[in-house]
């Protein structure tokens, strides 16, 4: 039998399938009012503070719950992105910051209601924030980065006013209240399901959303789909409007090629996790809107374990920084879809007081050889280069190119591809010498980056660097209220990081949001997911 016969047989089967198919009459209407978002990931909880919460679950919680405040948005290179410096009220209609920066006062919207119809009060806010800093969850360590640590800091002034006091004027206290962990929960509903072992109703809230957000949960099937229904009482979208879509379906489609097919056929409205080459192809075909936003709060690194010889020598690290084929890496791994962080030249006034900042590094094998000789390793050495399976699409070509290039300066590299859980374990235990990893910061200010990713004996300090100067400047900058002095501190941190080179920032990959031309309002958000509340149909 030939393939043609096979195809014919299959065609017959498919015709049978269509005959079986049929169409529902009222579908067109509801389709237009429904946002179908497809993703490879899974929503595993309705309570975003639970350990193990996936990014998709953050996106759902952003719509089902309100926070006191929310990030505004700004234009960056022609794309809308969230704006850390323009924080506006969400559940609060306005807020005041005292002159010394130690007291934040929030005035709640008087007409705000939870989805069960009960009014939102300052007591609910207090209970929710108490929960965030007290319960065993991921919220406490996040809010700690904004000096929010104790229930004593949250005080109810009256039914619609709540005051937050800070021990020091922390720059990130207010932004932290806009992150996914600072959700405001219906305390009466939650308390009804609390138990002596579970005083914060964590078990119940994992399966039930009790918020005041723009959407209520209709269907929650972890690993399959979440269906949200618009909350008509919610008017947090630009001046007093409910959210744009009546219904949101967030569906898990594990196969990336299938996701690409769905959106190209118009069966899905928006997708953000396609393969880089698929996004590129869809853009070239021109039927869809492809919004490529460099993830300006994320960085991909090549990291060294600075506690493991020979990477404890700065010269070795700099030698490798001079031996990476940056342009080839960028093309092979990302198809050029991102913002490179290499090849810069720092002149007068540089580096810019931001993080990440483009580095003055480029491929220069002669310089690399010289640095290796200075480090006492003129003949090179052997090491391993590790990455996790989840990143294989980008990391595999990177690893091959890095091995090839480092061979030229005598460094023999063995490539190690590790299952995700194993890689994160080894990185936490500081057992990987040389590897690639990514980071993301919800609150992308330089001191936050340096404090989280360049200090302390913890997992996210990939390079295990412990430099007194970085520790001191980053620690002080956190409480610096003078913008000029803060910028100086950020420059000093950037210069110090370049000198030590504990890890090489490579690039910021694009988030390719591929959507139907009828979908409007897409904004790149801090949690790198789609905020369904931003979207509407033209």
């Amino acid at each position, binding site marked *: 039998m030939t393939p043609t016969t096979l195809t014919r047989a299959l065609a017959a089967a498919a015709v049978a*399938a269509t005959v079986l198919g049929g169409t529902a009459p009222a579908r067109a209407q509801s389709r237009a009012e429904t946002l179908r978002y497809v993703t490879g990931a899974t929503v595993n909880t309705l309570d975003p503070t639970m350990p193990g919460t996936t990014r998709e679950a953050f996106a759902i919680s952003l719509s089902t719950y309100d926070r006191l405040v929310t990030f505004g948005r700004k234009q960056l290179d022609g794309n809308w992105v969230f704006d850390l410096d323009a924080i506006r009220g969400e559940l609060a209609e306005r807020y005041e910051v005292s002159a010394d920066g130690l007291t934040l006062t929030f005035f709640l919207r008087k007409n705000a209601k939870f989805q069960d119809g009960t009014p939102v009060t300052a007591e609910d806010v207090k209970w929710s924030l108490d929960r965030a800093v007290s319960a065993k969850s991921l919220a406490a360590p996040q809010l700690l980065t904004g000096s929010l640590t104790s229930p004593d800091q949250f005080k109810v002034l009256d039914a619609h006013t709540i005051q937050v006091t800070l021990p020091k004027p922390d720059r990130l206290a207010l932004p932290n209240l806009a992150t996914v962990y600072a959700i405001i929960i219906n305390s009466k509903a939650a308390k009804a399901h609390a138990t002596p072992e579970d005083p914060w109703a964590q078990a119940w809230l994992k399966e039930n959303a009790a918020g005041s957000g723009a959407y209520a949960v209709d269907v929650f099937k972890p*690993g*399959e789909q979440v269906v949200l229904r618009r909350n008509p009482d919610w008017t947090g979208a630009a001046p007093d409007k409910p959210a744009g879509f009546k219904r949101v379906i967030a569906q898990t489609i*594990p196969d990336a090629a299938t996701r690409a097919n769905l959106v190209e056929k118009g069966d899905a409205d928006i997708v953000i996790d396609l393969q880089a080459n698929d996004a590129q192809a869809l853009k070239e075909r021109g039927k869809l809107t492809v919004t490529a936003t460099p993830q300006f709060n994320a960085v991909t690194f090549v990291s060294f374990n600075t506690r493991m010889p020979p990477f404890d020598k700065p010269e070795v690290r700099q030698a490798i920084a001079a031996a990476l084929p940056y342009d080839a890496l960028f093309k092979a791994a990302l198809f050029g879809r991102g913002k490179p962080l290499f090849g810069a030249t720092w002149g007068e006034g540089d580096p810019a007081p931001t993080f990440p900042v483009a580095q003055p590094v480029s491929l220069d094998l002669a310089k690399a050889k010289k640095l290796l000789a200075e480090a006492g390793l003129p003949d090179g050495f052997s090491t391993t280069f590790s990455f996790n399976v989840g990143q294989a699409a980008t990391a595999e070509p990177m690893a091959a190119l890095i091995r090839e290039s480092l061979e030229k300066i005598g460094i023999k590299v063995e490539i190690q591809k590790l299952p995700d859980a194993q890689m994160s374990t080894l990185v936490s235990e500081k057992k990987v010498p040389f590897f690639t990893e990514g980071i993301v910061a919800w609150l992308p200010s330089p001191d936050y980056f340096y404090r989280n990713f360049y200090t302390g004996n913890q997992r996210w300090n990939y390079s295990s660097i412990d430099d007194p100067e970085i520790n001191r400047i980053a620690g002080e900058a956190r409480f610096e209220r003078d913008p000029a002095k803060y910028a100086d501190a950020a420059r000093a941190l950037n210069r110090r990081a370049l000198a030590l080179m504990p890890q090489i920032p490579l690039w910021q990959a694009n988030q390719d949001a591929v959507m139907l031309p009828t979908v409007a309002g897409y904004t790149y958000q801090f949690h790198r997911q789609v905020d369904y509340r931003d979207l509407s149909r033209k």
Partner: protein
Amino acid sequence: MAASRPASSRPASPWAGIARRAGRRLASSLPALLGVLVLTFLLMRVLPGDPAVFFASGPNAGKAEIEEVRRQMGLDRPVPEQLVRYLGDVATGHLGRSMTTGQPVLTDLRRRLPASLELTFTALAIALALAIPLGIAAALRPGSLVDHGVRFLCALGVCVPTFVSGLLLIYVFYYLLGLAPDPTGRIDVFAATPPDITGFLLVDFALVGDGEGWRNAASQLVLPALTMALFVLAPLARITRASMLAVLGSDFIRTARSLGLPPRRVVVTYALRNAILPVLTIAGIVFSTMLGANVLVEKVFSWPGVASYALDALLASDYAPVQGFVLLMASLFVLVNLTVDVLYGLADPRISVE
């Protein structure tokens, strides 16, 4: 299958023998199940990768959070104690909680198993419906063009990996021709939620008499079932052919033919019934393999089944779901073997005597 032949002159009904065999089989499989349970448990803990680190992966998760996850998963206790607790849990019907989906493993499996079973049953039905006639046709004219054609088709089915044939079918019937519905799960996402009675959508829709829903579910099922059926066509068709060849060459067939019985009667009633035993065995094995091995089909078609569930859990070193999945598969394997035994007894009453 024709069970009407006055099979034996023995007084005892074949059912008694079947029941006795079934009971003995079930009892003897318990130690094997326990072994599987312990082995999987130990294997998961030997694998590198610490689930606590993996799941405590918030932007600021530190040592305290990792310890908390470890405590929640019960990993802070010594391994022998964990094992005893786990066995106790399983005995009382608890399989632990999945960190990947946040749900109890039992709930997840109960919800997803019907999806996998429905797909596998349909695929097996399609495969048998294709393989047995093809096998017979090939056996009737060995060495002919038909025989070679069947061999080629089987080789093709086995050689092309399921994710390739799945993607190909999607590309042709969904993307190019637009004949098939979008390959995303068991039912159109815009349709109303299906009734939840048995979990088998085709059965549920038939029970509530929802014709449109039934058609919808059936049309979602066609492509994935076809993909899997193509893959298992080969063993079924080949074994049918081999078994039929042996039987067709035997004395009683020659006798039947020489007596001038109609060819259809000779082939279907006498030859096929005698040749079906090895096919049943293989069908049982194929069924068990399909349930576990259809992970690629489930991934490609976003089918919410147990295999893709277990794979996700395995990649995340999420112990409870993997252990639950292996236990489920082992139990199913026992059940399938049992069913095959029972069918043996029906096809050939001599077997129940032993």
